[in-house]
């Protein structure tokens, strides 16, 4: 079903203008908001200098959405919001209302669609994640299934603001880490644990050997004679850190390994500047098995971190700030996670993470 392209051919027009789809209440008060109030989980009220009020109802989506669902959201926007809606940076959908009396009916319609309202303030917001097996060639695991499994277990913390501070979880299905996974309170990261398997025949056909050799950050790829006298490569296995960059430039460097691929768990990162500076997440668990469809080991580990954090952290402490106070030894003690040789950095600047003082908690 190929149709004739429309004429004239239009290119390079960019996105719709930034103010094209703003509801009237926002147009009237653009840049003139005064403060906001919390009206319960998932509900915000922004008050403008003019006295106008804007009510936001935030709800979680699976990010992967069918056009059928999008049309339902559009219908809700027509019914309750004058025909406007927005999405957030964490895959939530937001309905923007002028009439507070419409909040409850909208919530009921969302509940009927199975769409949870929440994710504001000291709640767990929706999980930022990548494509996984749904659409990525480099994925060590699926992302959508992990998110679904983890959020099923944590949904009460999405629909209730019952944590010491906000808690941001992210999933990346390989070390490319599409999204800010490396700066999350809890990050779930797909990992490979074996060097690439060189597909000799394919390599001579589709890959440029010098580019491939240059792609390795540890110099673990070297040239060898290949099929039909053409150049191929071999991998110095002990030098490989399984980053997959060679696979990105050459599909013949096969990384996927059903037996050895799995998940690692990282904690304590943040991007906000509030209180402490932005920081990376740190390794909590180096490996958990890739166990679809429900990944019980991953869900258990994440729930454990959330439960311990919720019980131990002070008000306003993000996960990383809480661990700053209690120390890593107590974090491992409280969670029951094992501290291993893998937790000690051995990449560039590793020495900066060694404990360089005699300050020790007992």
């Amino acid at each position: 079903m190929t149709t004739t392209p429309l004429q004239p051919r239009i290119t390079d027009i960019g996105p719709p203008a930034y103010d094209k789809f703003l509801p009237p209440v926002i147009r009237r008060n653009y840049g003139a908001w005064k403060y906001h109030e919390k009206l319960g989980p998932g509900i915000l009220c922004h008050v403008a200098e003019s006295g106008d009020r804007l009510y936001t109802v935030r709800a979680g989506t699976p990010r992967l959405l069918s056009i059928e669902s999008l049309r339902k959201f559009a219908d809700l926007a027509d019914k309750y919001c004058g025909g406007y809606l927005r999405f957030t940076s964490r895959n939530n959908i937001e309905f923007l209302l002028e009439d507070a009396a419409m909040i409850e009916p909208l919530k009921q319609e969302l509940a009927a669609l199975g769409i949870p309202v929440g994710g504001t303030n000291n709640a767990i917001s929706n999980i930022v994640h990548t494509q996984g097996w749904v659409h990525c060639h480099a994925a060590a695991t699926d992302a959508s299934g992990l998110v679904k499994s983890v959020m099923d277990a944590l949904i009460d913390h999405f629909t209730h603001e019952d944590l010491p501070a906000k808690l941001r979880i992210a999933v990346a299905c390989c070390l490319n880490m599409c999204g800010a996974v490396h700066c999350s309170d809890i990050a779930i990261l797909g990992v490979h644990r074996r060097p690439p398997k060189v597909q000799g025949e394919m390599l001579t056909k589709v890959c440029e050997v010098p580019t491939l050799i240059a792609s390795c950050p540890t110099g673990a790829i070297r040239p060898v004679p290949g099929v039909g006298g053409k150049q191929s490569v071999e991998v110095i296995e002990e030098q490989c850190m399984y980053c997959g960059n060679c696979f990105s430039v050459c599909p013949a460097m096969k990384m996927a390994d059903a037996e050895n691929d799995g998940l690692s768990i990282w904690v304590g990162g943040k991007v906000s500047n509030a209180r402490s500076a932005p920081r990376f997440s740190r390794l909590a668990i180096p490996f958990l098995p890739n166990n679809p469809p429900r990944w019980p080991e991953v869900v258990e580990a994440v729930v454990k971190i959330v439960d311990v954090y919720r019980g131990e952290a002070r008000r306003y402490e993000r996960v990383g700030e809480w661990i700053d106070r209690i120390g890593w030894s107590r974090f491992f003690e409280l969670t029951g996670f094992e501290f291993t040789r893998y937790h000690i950095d051995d990449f560039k600047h590793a020495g900066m993470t060694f404990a360089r003082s005699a300050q020790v908690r007992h």
Partner: protein
Amino acid sequence: MAEGDDGMELKRSERKTPLLDELEKGPWPSFVTEIKSASGGNESAGDLLGQLELSYEDKVSHWKHGGLVGVLGYGGGVIGRYSDVGEQYPKVAHFHTLRVNHPAGWFYSSDALRTVCDIWERHGSGLTNMHGSTGDMILLGTTTDHLEPAFQELTHAGFDLGGSGSAVRTPSCCVGMARCEWACFDAMKLCYDLTMAYQDEIHRPAFPYKFKIKCSACPNDCVAAIARADLSVIGTWKDEIRIDQDEVAKYATSGMDIQRDVCGNCPGKCMDWDGKQLNIDNRDCVRCMHCINAMPKALRPGVKKGAVVLIGAKAPILQGALLSSVLIPFVPAEELLETLKELIQRIWDFWDEYGTNRERIGELIQRVGLAAFLDGIGLDPVPEMVSAPRDNPYIYYQATKEGEE
């Protein structure tokens, strides 16, 4: 209707996906339900479900490396994707994705959303991501012959493709002045203006690697600019935090422990609460937002607003993850667009000259040194750029130039 293995047409409810069916249980909305919903009207969504079930069985991805597919005159915006089990699932043998540049702040009218849905019903799988990590609307899965017609219908509807490959990636921003009292610059307008200024660089990859631009209008950084943008623009202010002491008192009356929870968490140790009055020594304030976040009715950013410009964030591939670091400590809001355009050009010139293949700007700065980079782009060093001066004595002293002391 999906095609079954035996050549018989299967109703979608008859396709056996026992593993994925497990992910329709539980309270969180299910992506499997979404794929099944699309498979009612689209065969490729049905085959996607089948291929995904296979991945859940054998624990590997069944997508092959992207191929070079796209629309006429563009070098990006389409992610080529082919199945390695295309014979088994012919409707996803070719399953390319369109990245559509989202409206700033991810605002839509219901009509615009329906228009995109209609286009994607005619030309694709009926599946989307709202949204991709970088910010684009992701239209998930179509065949090569549908790319150009889909693209033309999108542009006629007022949408264009976003970036991919070694190009400027689709800039993104927080909700900014549209709905946030903390916005220190007009993030949505700036994001839009930069996007329009770099249409060529977004659509026609010509760089060593990707270049991401993100604008967060206050230090809460709701689009994680500091963690993932090569150029991070983060709002801040220069003057004093605005205080409404009556509202501070109301927070105290309502049970907030202001001394412990607000003052005690201040990284600049610049405030104290005597039970009646909140006193802030703004000279020591680092503009972190904690006190303002805690008491939004009582405290607000100052009125001399602008942004910090930072450079170099990226995920781990290749030389390890980087956070952006300060390049310009403060640019007044009204000067941001022009300052950034001039700065970006100088950065790209340097990157073009010295960057190697797949080297992000942050890694190039790590390799040549921040001081050499500053020389290259003609920016003077200032103390705000470092957490502390160097502690090693191996200084590369430069020979005194002629005519200088």
